[in-house]
């Protein structure tokens, strides 16, 4: 890591300005588009600054987990595509991709975004499986938030498919949407020095001290947390970070709802 760059970013933040001219609590311009991949049962593209993420939903029918025989299955996957950034190479998913997938998964799962009981076909034997894949085409930071937003938009966009002999008939979409009960919006607050910022770029992520992802439900309830970065956080920090996340989650939720209304 370049210590100089960190000092430089921090000095500017003390004056309330970021490398790209944004204010500390400002998101880049965000664009959300649904229905972008016909082969997926649901899909969305989120562009934010120079980051572009595609989320796609595939459905399948399979066996439920033993401990939840009446619940549909949801799995979130992610990969750092080597096409999106020169630092990535092919191979098994890197730990950062695994974290992105798991934090998005946690928000959706714990926020009870999907009514999994509604996805049971035959108790203990057959349930719907919702496979969500979140992939960056362009990577310039903030993949958890933007991937999470894309996943929610794709879930809302998704349609069930016809079933024949207990198997899904792909390409035969029905008019029925997935049973989505809520939209847990993830917001990551990044701490650099004594400054809190949102929607970090790749450069800002490289020098961060700590970050906290907060998944927020409609009523302000928190449904998932993830603290990362090498530095520790005080309770005061956590308090401020959650406040900021709550505030930004409302903004993003509004954008998401506008895009879905289209």
């Amino acid at each position, binding site marked *: 890591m370049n210590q100089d760059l960190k000092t430089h970013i921090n*000095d*500017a933040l003390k004056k309330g300005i970021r490398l790209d001219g944004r204010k500390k609590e400002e998101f880049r311009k965000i664009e959300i588009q649904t229905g972008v991949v016909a082969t997926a049962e649901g899909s969305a593209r989120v562009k934010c600054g120079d980051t572009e993420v595609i989320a796609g939903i595939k459905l399948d029918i399979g066996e439920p987990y033993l401990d939840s025989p009446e619940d549909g299955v949801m799995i979130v996957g992610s990969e750092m595509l080597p096409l999106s950034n020169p630092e990535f190479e092919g191979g098994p998913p890197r730990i950062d991709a695994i974290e992105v997938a798991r934090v998005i998964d946690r928000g959706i799962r714990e926020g009870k975004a999907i009514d999994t009981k509604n996805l049971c076909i035959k108790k203990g034997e057959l349930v719907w499986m919702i496979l969500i894949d979140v992939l960056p085409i362009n990577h310039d930071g903030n993949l958890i938030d933007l991937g999470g937003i894309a996943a929610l938009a794709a879930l809302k966009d998704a349609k069930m498919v016809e079933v024949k002999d207990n198997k899904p008939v792909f390409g035969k979409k029905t008019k029925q949407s997935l049973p989505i009960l809520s939209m847990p919006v993830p917001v990551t607050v990044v701490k650099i020095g004594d400054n809190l910022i949102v929607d970090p770029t790749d450069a800002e992520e490289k020098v961060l001290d700590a970050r906290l992802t907060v998944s927020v439900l409609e009523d302000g309830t928190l449904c998932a947390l993830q603290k990362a970065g090498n530095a520790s956080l005080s309770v005061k920090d956590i308090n401020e970070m959650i406040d900021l996340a709550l505030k930004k989650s409302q903004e993003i939720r509004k954008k998401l709802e506008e895009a879905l209304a289209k």
Partner: protein
Amino acid sequence: MTDGKLVVKDKDIVVPGEVLAKGMNFLPGHGTYRNNDEIIANRLGLLTVDGKVLKTVPLAGRYLPKKNDTIIGRVMDILMSGWRLDINSAYPAVLPLKDATFSYIAKGADLTKYFELDDYVVVKITNVTSQNLVDVTCKGQGLHKLRGGRIIQVNTHKVPRIIGKKGSMVSLIKKATGCKIIVGQNGTAWISGEPEMEVIAVNAIKMIEEQSHVSGLTDKVKDFLEKATGKKLEVSEKE
């Protein structure tokens, strides 16, 4: 054989495989080749007709090291005999011990005292071998390690435009923003100043990069800088 004729115009943007001229009247220069009676572009670029010679000036692609170029490199490796620098090219450069500083570096000295990993250094290319081994020096006027500021990457082929005639364009940005700016021939640039002024300087550079082919660019950049900074600028030299 009939008379040769140009199929495209001077200053056209041409792409690989594009036929530039037919007949034997023209000669293939850099970025072009002859295939029977046709001259064809072999890289993306701007066509330049120089008498009978057709060549393309590249618009894209990584930096090709040239002797005497002043560039900015990033320390990627510390060797026994010096430092290896990433210079935004297919090939790294080597800064040997003897070219690092005017003072003597003893054998076995801690080289990180001079340059550490990820340091950015302004260097000059002293030699490029046929095998693309690149040697650089840090001894000379304006050659030094960079402290503070930020690094940005620009299209290496737009560097002449960003610098401007006799440095006029970059001087304009420096004057308007009060930033210190160094633009390496390899497209790596360093900017250091007040935070909000740095943002303006970066945006001005991006503007030049994107509109390098537009005429009257100096005036446009001047307008942009005046609006952004709220200061009037005197332009001493036109492009």
